């Protein structure tokens, strides 16, 4: 992809951004649909989150009276980090704009920036709910970040580089690497982290009405209208991004390696299929498990961390 003109790779980035903006809410809708069908309900159509977001954009903006500039700034930061990550990560092809500088650790820290912004906004509302959400979210983040970092490091050690397109290309070049023990251990660790970072059952219930059981929802309780829409869109984009990275790091077949329109179309279709499959699997797990008590969540996250460390050790011991 190095011979591709910057204009073409910028175009790929724009396509990826568009896919993330529409695909994220569609994945949310798909997960809600699977949950509804499992409960025997017809369920809202898959495009419902997009309708919700459009309606939110047209509502009034309200700011809590004791809040400061951080409250309106946080949704912008969440969207900016999710959009930047979606534009530079290898989602549809291995050569989007700035793909040369798309480092795995950059994505990890961009996601952390988004989480920190939302937590600060929760504290800025000056209410008990916001503080509770921020406290719980940072505690869970404090234990999920290490697992994410070490799992990414395990993949980087095997591929010999921490450049994300590089890791994807190396898996395409060595298909046998996809079933090595270190890959599988890293996969399990990353799946646990995805549940924690996106706030799904068994870590958090995104549709709970009881504030005492809320983690993520409590931080955004005070947002209204377009700002709520931006935060929600940002969260769906993060979900889409994490599922896409899970798909492309562990099963990259289908991703475009050239800039041809057919290849990009195939890459888009492959991405949609893979992320839809993972979303359905996550939804099935959600439906068949109960939410964990808050103080049991660190146990599952520590298990993820230990698995990630084991992945690194396995990678070093078995060349």
């Amino acid at each position, binding site marked *: 992809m190095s011979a591709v003109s910057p204009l073409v790779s910028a175009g790929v980035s724009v396509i990826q951004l568009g896919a993330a903006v529409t695909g994220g809410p569609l994945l949310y809708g798909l997960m809600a649909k*699977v949950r*509804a*069908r*499992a*409960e*025997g*309900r*017809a*369920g*809202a*159509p898959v495009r*419902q989150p997009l*309708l*919700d977001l*459009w*309606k939110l954009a*047209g*509502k*009034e*903006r*309200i700011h809590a009276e004791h809040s400061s500039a951080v409250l309106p700034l946080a949704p912008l930061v969440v969207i900016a980090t999710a959009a930047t990550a979606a534009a530079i990560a290898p989602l549809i092809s291995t050569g989007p704009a700035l793909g040369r500088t798309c480092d795995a650790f950059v994505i990890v820290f961009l996601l952390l920036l988004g989480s920190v912004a939302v937590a600060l906004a929760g504290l800025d509302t000056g209410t008990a709910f916001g503080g509770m959400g921020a406290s719980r979210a940072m505690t869970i983040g404090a234990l999920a970040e290490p697992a994410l970092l070490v799992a990414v490091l395990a993949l980087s050690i095997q591929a010999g580089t921490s450049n994300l397109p590089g890791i994807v290309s190396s898996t395409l070049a060595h298909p046998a690497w996809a079933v090595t023990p270190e890959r599988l251990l890293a996969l399990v660790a990353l799946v646990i982290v995805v549940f924690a970072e996106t706030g799904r059952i068994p870590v958090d219930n995104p549709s*709970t*009405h*009881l*504030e005492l059981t*809320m983690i993520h*929802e409590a931080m955004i*309780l*005070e*947002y*209204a*209208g377009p700002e*709520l829409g931006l935060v929600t869109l940002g969260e769906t984009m993060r979900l889409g991004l994490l599922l896409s990275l899970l798909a492309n790091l562990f099963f990259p077949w289908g991703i475009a390696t050239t800039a041809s329109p057919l290849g990009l179309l195939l890459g888009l279709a492959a991405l949609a299929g893979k992320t839809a499959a993972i979303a359905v699997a996550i939804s*099935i797990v959600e*439906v*068949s498990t109960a939410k964990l008590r808050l103080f049991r969540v660190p146990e599952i996250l520590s298990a993820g961390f230990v698995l990630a460390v084991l992945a690194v050790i396995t990678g070093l011991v078995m060349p």
Partner: protein
Amino acid sequence: MVTLRFMQLLPLLRSLFSRPVTERLPRPPGPRGGAGFGGSVQLRHVDAGSCNGCELEIASAFGPVYDAGRFGARLVASPRHADGVLVTGVVTRNMAVPLGKTLDAVPEPRVIVACGDCALGRGPFGGGYGVASSQGPLAAPDVAIPGCPPGPAAITQALRTLTGR
């Protein structure tokens, strides 16, 4: 342990592909396009002194058989996330101010849905010593669902007039 888990998944997977139990409902009368929310309405439910009869019917309305969610309606936890309040119960003295605050917290454009005869001022508990003297914002609701309690089909159809689906 793993076999047990797998056996529990089989009925779940079967239900994913089988026909849902949700009843079909005819399109309610009223303008297409509903109240202008574009097919998505979120409501914050407030119990302003109800006997819980309407709450049970609302739970049924969002349950598998009547599923108001398929028409774009949803109950949310925070009035800031909502398009309106769904009020049940006669407005008691203690709930008058909180109901007003809840409605005030909803961003414009907003609606009030009065569910049940109590909320419409006609219920069996009206005029009691604990009931507020004036109904406040409930005096002129945007959507009225009469009944004591209204059936889940009526509630669903009323919500469809809001979403327009």
